[in-house]
Structures are given as C-alpha cells and as structure tokens.
C-alpha cells in the first residue's frame, strides 16, 4: 500500500503529514520546528515553535513573545505519528538538523550546516537516514575553505597592520553566528573589540548562555572611539559604508564570507580586505555530509540546486531539487 512520504514540499514549506508540523516554514503555520535563528529559517507568525534549547534564547530575542517549546540535542520526541530529534548542524551556536522518523523511515532536514568545527557551535554530527535534505549554498567545486587557523592569522595581521597605518579596522559580519565566530578568532591582546548594536545583542544572548566569548564594548552614540585606541570594530554588512561608520575616522574595511573566495565578488564588495570564512559547508563538506548520511535519496535546496543535483546523479545517487519559492539574491544569504 502506498504511504504518504515522510515529508512533503508545500507552498508553506517542508511539511510532515504524520506529525502535522512544518520545518522552517515561510508562511504562518500552527506548528513550526525551527533549525536555527537566522531570519530565512525562523519567521514570525507561527502559533507554536519547537527548537533546541541552545537556539531558544535567540529565537525569543528575535521573535518576541512566542509560544516556544525546547528540546536538547539527541532527545526523542513523539509528535503525532512521527518521532523527532534535533542534532548539531555546526552552522551557528544552537543550530540543528532535524531527524524525522515515521514507521521506520528516516528523513533528515539539515537546515544550514557546516562540517568543520568552528570552536563555538556544537560540531556537526552525521545522522544516518533514508532521505537527506541538504542545502547547496556553496555547491560548486570552486568552494573549498582554507584552514580557519590561517584565516585567523590573516585577520589578526590585518588588525595590527591597520592600526599601525592609522586606520580603524571595521569588519563586516552577519550578527548571529559569523560575528561571534570572528570574536572567538580575534586576538583580544591586540586591542579592544567594539561592536555595533545588532551584533552586541546577539553576542550578549550567546554569552549569557555560556558560550565563551571575549569582552566587547557596544558602540553607542556616546562612544568616543579615541577612548578605545587600537580597536577593531565589528558591524553588520548594512552598517559598512554608512554614516554610522564615520565616527571612526579613517578605516580599513573587511568582510568575512564564503563568497570572498571569488575575486569578482571581493572586488564588487569594494572592501579593503575579504576573508574566506563561511558557516556553510564547502564543496568537500557537502559531499562528505551526503556520503555520511548514507541516504539513498537526496533532496537539494537553497543554492546551486541544479548543478549539485546533477553532480550527485552523475555519482549514481538518486537526487532531486526541492521545489522552492526562494528568489532572493544568493550572494546575500549567509
């Protein structure tokens, strides 16, 4: 007898008929399981939310007074006829892949993930399954991340050199995840770390959760940059080149993203420095994750879906593109 698939791809997002819930839905639903707190995954308006304990404080901070249940990594929950558990995705602190089992058939929604440990996020954990839903943000063989230790060295060198040249280094990074990862890579021995309000908010939430982060100074209208000589400033991409930056006098701008791998993108950003650092899996990482899932069916979403699907098929895997209404600028998503 034909059964419903464990998950369906609908207008509102990924849906589990056996459990009556959605994963990272785009439109308001009754019950939403959330992989992590980034805005393209955790949207407002759902009646009930479920996330990991680690992701919850950020969800509350970003979405306000929501009805939110939490669960630890690895703990099994029964929702309707589905057995659900959350497993580390290594993307940002608290982020998860969601494992969904219905009548012995296992699907995994990986959300956003990276396979290399970043020292802050709970490291990615391969989860065996029958069907694996993978992102493909960097699903081309040109993306192969350099050793993060080398990137850390470049970052700290740039900090020192900028200060020596009389410029304040201003580093652009997404407020949740990337910013804290950078904080943990920067050497506080060089000087103070100043943060833009949006970054300070997420940082203090994570710090309160017990993630080990160096001390930071939030920049307010009263902040006198001269009182913080030799500082490095962390700001969200939107603040780079804005009036907000003027207070720091002559600056050297940097940006940390996987897209900085491409010379064309580096030049388009018109930054002084680009650092290759991503919270998504690179090409080897995607391939490893697919392999280690042991899945016989792969669904590809979010990124170079067509090419990565075709590649997996050429390797003898049963792969398909997740139909999606995603139309944003790929380069803007991180």
């Amino acid at each position: 007898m034909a059964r419903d698939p464990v998950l369906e791809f609908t207008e509102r997002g990924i849906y589990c008929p056996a459990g009556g819930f959605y994963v990272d839905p785009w439109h308001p639903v009754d019950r939403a399981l959330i992989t992590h707190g980034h805005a393209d995954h955790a949207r407002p308006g759902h009646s009930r939310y479920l996330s990991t304990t680690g992701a919850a404080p950020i969800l509350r901070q970003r979405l306000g007074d929501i009805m939110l249940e939490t669960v630890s990594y690895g703990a099994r929950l029964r929702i309707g006829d589905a057995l659900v558990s959350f497993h580390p995705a290594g993307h940002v602190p608290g982020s998860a892949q969601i494992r969904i089992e219905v009548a012995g058939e296992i699907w995994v929604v990986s959300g956003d993930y990276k396979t290399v440990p970043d020292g802050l996020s709970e490291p990615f954990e391969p989860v065996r399954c029958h069907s694996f839903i993978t992102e493909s943000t960097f699903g081309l063989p040109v993306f192969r991340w350099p050793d993060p230790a080398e990137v850390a060295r470049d970052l700290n060198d740039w900090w020192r050199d900028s200060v020596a040249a009389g410029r304040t280094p201003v580093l652009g990074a997404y407020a949740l995840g990337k910013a804290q990862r950078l904080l943990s890579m920067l050497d506080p021995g060089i000087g103070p770390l100043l943060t833009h309000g949006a970054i300070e908010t997420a940082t203090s939430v994570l710090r309160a959760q017990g993630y080990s982060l160096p001390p930071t100074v939030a920049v307010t209208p009263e902040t006198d940059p001269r009182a913080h000589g030799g500082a490095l400033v962390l700001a969200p991409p939107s603040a780079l080149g804005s009036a907000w930056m003027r207070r720091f006098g002559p600056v050297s701008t940097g940006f940390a993203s996987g897209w900085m791998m491409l010379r064309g993108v580096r030049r388009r950003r018109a930054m002084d420095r680009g650092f290759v650092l991503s919270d998504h899996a690179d090409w080897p990482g995607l391939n490893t994750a697919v392999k280690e899932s042991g899945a016989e069916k792969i669904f590809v979403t979010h990124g170079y879906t067509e090419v990565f699907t075709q590649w997996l098929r050429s390797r003898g895997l049963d792969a398909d593109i997740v139909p999606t209404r995603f139309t944003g600028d790929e380069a803007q998503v991180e």
Partner: protein
Amino acid sequence: MIRFAHLFEALDQSTRTTDKVNALAAYFAEAEPLDRLWTVALFSGRRPRRAVTTTELRNWAAEAAALPLWLVEESYPVVGDLAETIALILPPPDRLSRRSLSGWMALLRDLAGQPEAARRAAILQAWAELDTAQRFLFNKLVTGGFRVGVSQKLMTRALAQATGHDAAELAHRLMGSWSPEMTSWERLIEAEDGGADASRPYPFCLAHPLESAPDDLGPPQDWRAEWKWDGIRGQLILREGRHFVWSRGEELMTDRFPELARALDFLPPGTVLDGEILAWDGIAPLPFAALQRRIGRKSVPKKLLAEAPVILLAYDLLEWQGRDLRSAPFVQRRALLDRALSGLPPDAPVRPSPLVGFDDWQALADIRTEARNRQAEGLMLKRVASPYHAGRKKGDWWKWKLDPHTVDAVMIYAQAGHGRRATLYTDFTFAVWDGDALVPFAKAYSGLTDAEFREITAWVRSNTLQRFGPVRQVKPELVFEIAFEGIQQSPRHKSGIALRFPRMLRWRRDKPAAEANRLEDLKQLLDPPGT
C-alpha cells in the same frame, strides 16, 4: 613567483593608489632584474605567445581535479574567469615550487609548439607545485589575458619612485615594441637612452571631458579649438625611411592602413604626427561605419581600399627633423605642423585638422552644435601655452563632446555579468515599440549603481519568462533611459539600426513599459537635420 604573487595580492587587495604604488615600488626595489622586466612587460599589456588553448586547459583541469567537464563549465560563469576557476577546482598542491616568474615565462616559451603530451605534462606538473594564488597567476600567464587594475600611469609612477628616474621619461621608454626577450632591465630602464628603436612612439597626451560650459577656462584667446573627430587616434612615425602607425592602445597598426605609407613621399624622416585616422571621401570624413569596415582587418583587400580609404587628420607635431618638440607650447607646435603640411597635394594621406576660429565662448558653443553634421563628436580645447603631456593631465586639454542622444527602452533579456559582477544580472537587452511588438535594438551593461543592479537582479530572478542558457527572458516591465553617441542603418539587426556606445543613464521607475519610445523615434535620428 611567490614574490610576484604577493605583489599581485597587494595590488588586488587595495583600492588606494598610494598603496598600489608603494607595493609596486617595493617589488621593483627588491625583485630580480629579469622578474622586474617581466612584471613591467605583463603590466603594460605585453603578453607571451600562447602555448596552450583554453579548451586544452579546461580538459586538463577537469582531469586533474577528477571532475566531469560539464561541472567545470558550470562553475566558470559563477567565477567569471577561467584562470581563477581552474585555480580553485584543482586539488591542493603536494609540494611548492620555488621557480621565479621569469623561470615560468621561460618554461612557457619553450612549451609553445611542442606536442600535446609534453605540454599537458608540463602544465599538470606546474599545477601540482603551485598554491591557489600562484596557480591563478600561472593560468593568467598561460592564457595571456593579464589585467590587474594597474594602469600604465600607476606603474610608471612606481617605477619612478623605485629607480629615481623621471616618470614621463620612463613612460616614453616603455612605449613601442619591446619584449623581455629582446632587451634587459638595464637597457630598458637604466641605460642612457641613445639607440632607441626607430618605431618607438611617444606617450599620447589625453584630454579630460569638459562637464560644463567652458566659461571658467579663462580668456578665449588662451585657447585653440579643433573638431573632435570620431575616428581612431593614431601616431604616425616617419624615421630612417620607414613609417609606423601606433594606436592609443599602443598597438602597431602600420599594415592595417597601407595608405599612410605615402606620407614618406611628402614628409622628411624624423617626423612624428599625432592625429585621427578617418575614412575620407576626398573632402570630408565618411561615416564611422566606413572606418569600422577597416578596423580589425590585418590586411586590406583592394576593393575596400577603394571604398573606404583612410587619411590622417593631424593635430599635433611631436617630432620634427628628429627633435622632440613635446615641451614646446602648443601654438608653436601647431604653427610648425601647419608649415610642414602646407602645400601637400590633395591626394597626400596626411592633412592638418583645421583649427576652429572663435571670438568668445558663446560663439564656440554655437559652432559646437554643428559637430554632428561634420561627422565630429564635439570639440577639443587646447591651451595655447601647453606642452604635449605624457598621459592624462587635467587642465590643458579638454574634450567638449555633444550631449548624447537618449531614448527610453524596455528591458527584455538579462544576463549575468563577468568577473566583478558574476553574481549580478548586469547585461541587458533593450527594446522599443514597433506597432504592438517590442523590437530589440541595443545591449548595455553599464551606467547603474551596484545597489540598482542588486535590486534588478532580485527582480530578474522572480520575473523570468524563459531561460536560454545564461540568458533570461524577463517580463517586459522595466524601463531605462539609454544614452548613445551615434546611430546608423544596419540591415544585420532586426530593428534595422545600430547604436554607438549605448549605455544606461538611469532606471525610469516612473515610466510604464507602454510609454517607452517607438522605433520611429529612433529612425528619425538617422538623417541628420539639414543645415
């Protein structure tokens, strides 16, 4: 090669001119002479002979990376550069070579003409010994397209800083046909400049655009005006009984314009003229379309020579009787030029470009409106007392062009850009109305801000009607104001017209597609209004 890679990284990373000059100067001060020489050669557009085709490179790279060729091909448009794509997909090197830049250049030179197996083995081995940054440069050297955002002017400044020589003199030394194989650092840069090559041109003096009316330039009598011709800027050199024709891009064009050889019959050796090469009907320039037939042809069939003969309309005299005149004031050079060219027969391939007389700026503004009827793009203004500068120096030469034509058009196709803009839709095809149909008539890819391109890119993604490879057909909704310099009939185009230098002036968010211009509006511009 490691040092060269560091230099490249420093140049590529910085957007500040002083940083670039300092990085170059530091490199010139410490690198080996032969590496320096190659660096100057590469940065001034001199490329080695190509030893390998890009098809071979793609195939070998796919093989070395153990990837199917189609995947390499799919990655290329995202990266926007083949050399970079290949550098990125190859597995990390197993050891690092210490070979110098000139060492790699010698290896590439020796590869040319060898059988495929030998060339393949050498390239694969090179890739296995270079890190990503060096591999990218190596691939650039192999493919020969080396552009790094270092202008000749910037490089000359750095050379001057590193060697203590005068920048203008260095610029002159670097002109013309030389290659690292024919010369040495000592001969090119350091030695007394005695036995220079007879073909060597002078650096062109370039004008800045005049953005407003010339009233601020001071008294009109300090200035001379000429027509700004719509041809090819060229330098005609007559030395030692031979002649050479150089383009502004420092390309030797002697064989393309054989007519100019006859200048040797009328002018003495030791003469160098700066002027405009134009297709000429005996009295006036032919439309640019005629000259276009000559551009890009290395040899010219007799029929074409008869239909579109060229002359040089000379506007400056840089050398006379073997003497460099560039430091003399413009009026003096101009007087000498007129004397040198006076009394030449009408079939001589060189004539003086006439001066345009005027008493006050308003009178000149009125004259400028006639430029299109004379096949000119506007006027040139040159200060009476000005020397012939090397390169672009603000203040003494101005180009005062006519305002461009404009038309409001609908975007119908979009294509992603290359390089810097590989992730954005920046190349658009535009259409105007012909009855109820939209006919494409122009392509353009510049003129908007990055923020606008990003917004349009998001729009293109959600308003695609059909995809043809990298091209997307989009809903005909967005209207843009397109500027262009000229228009001509073109049976090859569906619209029957072709534009010169079309570019986007602005995004007309206020205009619905139905209010875009019509093909008739464009065709009206075809016949210049009678005088």
